């Protein structure tokens, strides 16, 4: 029997607002513990929450970007449980009437989008690293009350890689909107996956498990695959999957159950009496709509359609907003060959930048565009152009000037002729092979020798042409 994976995801996104969800404390990361607190986010007696308008604005933008219906009146609830990172003894969250619902991103339906507050950060001293058995635990309330948006997808995903891909699209979309840092390692984007298997072709769902807090897409993918494997082994043995919350350890690849007590929680949700419903006005909706930029999915489609980029390249540019912006500005400066330009941006430029943004280097978009055109015009060879780009990234400037000062201009026909002659003379065995088989890959040795001699300034095609001409093949 074949099994089909059924996967849905839940994402918690820390919003990049100036202040916390329900008070005026500034958001911070890495500051001295407990320096961004007030009576409200410490849950002191008598304090009251007030909804952060910017968080609502970002929430509306997210709801709209995900094609959701915006609730005319959404309400906050109290989710009650005791834990030292939860100063009020309840989390203010949205429950039965979320800010937005019923949307779609790509092919995946979005169940709901809601606003809530983050918990504080617990640090446990002692071997276990957990509160049970800790020698001491301390709480840093700087993070407590950070605005969160929770996005829940429908169970529309069918594989681990599809899930990771959707996660990347969602991350790129949120980053593009500027509503969050979406940094998984720092926890500004946290992803849980609900995973189950069912016999292929069946409509009903199997029992799901929840993989908690995956801190990279690679681990998410590996974790889901490991969990699917575990579930399949259970089902093939005639066993039953137990609904539980699981932790995937990327180091060991092991899946362990978190305390099943968590499932037994009765959160006793009830409407938060300290807050009034969030009823977005026409003006608020318009402001959110106006603030929406072109989103990655739409941008990829446009780049593919209008500039003839491959789907893969278009997506690379669209998912990395700054790269896409750099590319589009370069095209605006010189749009004679967008495909070549795109390949240079996503290939050589990314190779030189690593994870840095183009703005972190000194290369100007018009300089790269000019370089690509120079290459097309035969003024600089491909490999010399890579060296030129290296200079541009490190020092900036104009590609023509770099070619001039570094002597990286394409070797002319006259200069090449002599070098090719010398190379042929030094490689009689290659000459024999080429005479016997003009298509032989042995030509590469000659091209290589010429490249070495010219320090990469030669055009490979031109060298090959000269070789054939001189050998009369």
């Amino acid at each position: 029997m074949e099994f089909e994976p059924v996967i849905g995801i839940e994402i918690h996104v820390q919003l990049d607002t100036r202040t916390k969800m329900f008070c005026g404390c500034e958001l911070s990361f890495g500051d001295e513990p407990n320096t961004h607190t007030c009576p409200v986010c410490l849950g002191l007696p008598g304090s009251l929450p007030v909804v952060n308008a910017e968080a609502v604005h970002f929430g509306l933008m997210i709801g709209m970007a995900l094609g959701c219906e915006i609730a005319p009146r959404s309400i906050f609830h109290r989710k009650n449980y005791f834990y030292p990172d939860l100063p009020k003894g309840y989390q203010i969250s949205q429950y039965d009437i979320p800010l937005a619902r019923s949307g779609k991103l790509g092919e995946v339906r979005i169940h709901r989008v809601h606003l809530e507050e983050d918990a504080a950060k617990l640090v446990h001293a002692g071997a276990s690293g957990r509160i049970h058995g800790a020698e001491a635990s301390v709480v840093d309330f700087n993070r407590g009350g950070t605005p969160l948006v929770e996005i829940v997808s429908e169970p529309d995903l069918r594989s681990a890689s599809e899930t990771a891909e959707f996660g990347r699209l969602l991350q790129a979309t949120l980053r593009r909107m500027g509503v969050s840092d979406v940094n998984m390692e720092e926890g500004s984007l946290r992803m849980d996956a609900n995973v189950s298997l069912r016999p292929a072709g069946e409509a009903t769902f199997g029992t799901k498990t929840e993989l908690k807090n995956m801190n990279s897409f690679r681990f998410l993918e590996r974790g889901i695959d490991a969990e699917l494997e575990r579930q399949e082994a259970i089902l093939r043995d005639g066993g039953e999957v137990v609904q539980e919350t699981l932790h995937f350890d990327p180091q060991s690849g092991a899946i362990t159950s978190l305390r099943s007590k968590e499932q037994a929680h009765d959160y006793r949700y009830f409407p938060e009496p300290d807050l009034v419903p969030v009823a977005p006005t026409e003006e608020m909706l318009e402001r959110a709509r106006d603030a929406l930029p072109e989103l990655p999915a739409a941008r990829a489609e446009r780049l593919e359609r209008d500039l003839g980029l491959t789907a893969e390249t278009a997506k690379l540019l669209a998912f990395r907003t700054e790269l896409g912006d750099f590319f589009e500005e370069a095209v605006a400066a010189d749009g004679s060959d967008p495909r070549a330009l795109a390949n240079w941006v996503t290939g050589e430029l990314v190779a030189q930048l690593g994870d840095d943004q183009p703005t972190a280097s000194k290369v100007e978009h018009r300089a790269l565009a000019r370089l690509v055109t120079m290459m097309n015009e035969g003024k600089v060879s491909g490999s010399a152009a890579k060296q030129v780009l290296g200079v541009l990234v490190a020092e900036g400037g104009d590609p023509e000037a770099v070619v001039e000062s570094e002597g990286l201009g394409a070797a002319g026909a006259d200069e090449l002729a002599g070098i090719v002659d010398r190379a042929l003379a030094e490689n009689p065995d290659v000459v024999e092979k080429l005479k016997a088989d003009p298509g032989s890959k042995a030509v590469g040795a000659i091209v290589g020798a010429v490249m070495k001699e010219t320090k990469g300034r030669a055009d490979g095609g031109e060298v090959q042409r000269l070789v054939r001409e001189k050998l009369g093949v």
Partner: protein
Amino acid sequence: MSADILSLTGAQAAERVRAGDLDAGELFAFYRERAAADDLNAFLWVADGPDGANSSGPLAGVPLAVKDLFCVEGVPSAAGSRILDGYRPPYTATAVRKLTEAGATVLGKTNQDEFAMGSSNENSGYGSVQNPWDRERVPGGSSGGSAAAVAAGLAPWAIGTDTGGSIRQPAALTGIVGLKPTYGAVSRYGMIAFASSLDQCGPLTRDVTDAALLFRHMVGRDPCDSTSLEFPEEVPLPSAERLDGVVFGVPPELTGEGVEPGVREVFERTTKLIEELGGKLEEVSLPHSRYGIAAYYVITPAEASANLARYDGVRFGPRAETDGDLTALYEQTREQGFGDEVKRRILIGTYALSSGYYDAYYGRAQRVRTKIADDFRAAFQKVDLLVTPTSPTVAFRLGEKTEDPLAMYLNDALTVSMPLAGIPAISIPGGLSDGLPVGIQLAGPAFSENRILDSAYALERAIGFEGVPVGV
């Protein structure tokens, strides 16, 4: 001179200070001495001096007694609970701040039922309060300390909070005036919460003019309280002498069953006075108000069960000594810190919100609440104000009802419906029954405080209640 100061109402004292006839420092010292000598257990803390007083404001430095549950920066604010013993908040409640900005001076913090849960002040973690009219009797609750302090002349005026009657009922039982404003009229920021959707603070004063004066300086939208609203009009000092054209509804549900004969007699005398002053009486029905107590004792414990979750020993207040286990820390801190009534209500509220019971209890109680509000709305189509007794009985004996929570809850029968509907109501002294004060309650639609105060003022003059100060 002392007897003279004691006879002044808050408004009169303020006027004397502003006119230069009375020194604000002397006024404060006079009341400080009385409050410090309090033997009713009305005060839990008394200020050393008029710190930061602003006697140039309209309230001219007149001392103010503040219910313990209002946070005052650096001042013990424990809401009558041992679980907050010694807690001094880092900030001041908006209502207190507004009053001090207007010139009031904090005289002290007054005793109350723990977290405002009670109708006799016997649930205080700091001992019960004696009623100055009869020291064997309760002053009512939960703002019992504020009421006793004003009635005994230990303070010229006070503020308290009302969730189901906690201003009006103690005002009635001690022969003073107590106003519960419209929900949202006064900010709740800095008021240690009992039941957030009903809690509202208001004045406890010797007369209606004082209530209006304090109220005037408390109202207004507060950016720190999302549920607060701008008061739609100025609050003038009341001046009505007659009640011509005002129609008073008399709801049989809140004037008949359970009201003891002595209270009924005072009530009937008052309704006659209303007619003599030109007012009209009309019977109106509030059919759902009989479910008020039931709904109230589901909704308020439910909200309280969440509001009181923060008292866990982690960040402030006393922490139980334990072997270090987190659950033990929670359980023992709360076991030691909370009194029986608070524990009872946390249990009731937790149960009412539990999965599987939510609809049957909390959901249903909220539907009843809507019906009660609808009843009032319908009634105010026909009448301007409602008139009822405030409490079904006069002050009862200390210990008389402590073993019977249900009997205690019934004290609120005539007062719980108004906060459930969010509407304002006042209690003024209507007279005596067997030597003990009887309160008369006037209620009106949301934001009708000015009309309520005006009618209460006219009635107050006609009643001519003489009773302040007594017993000390």
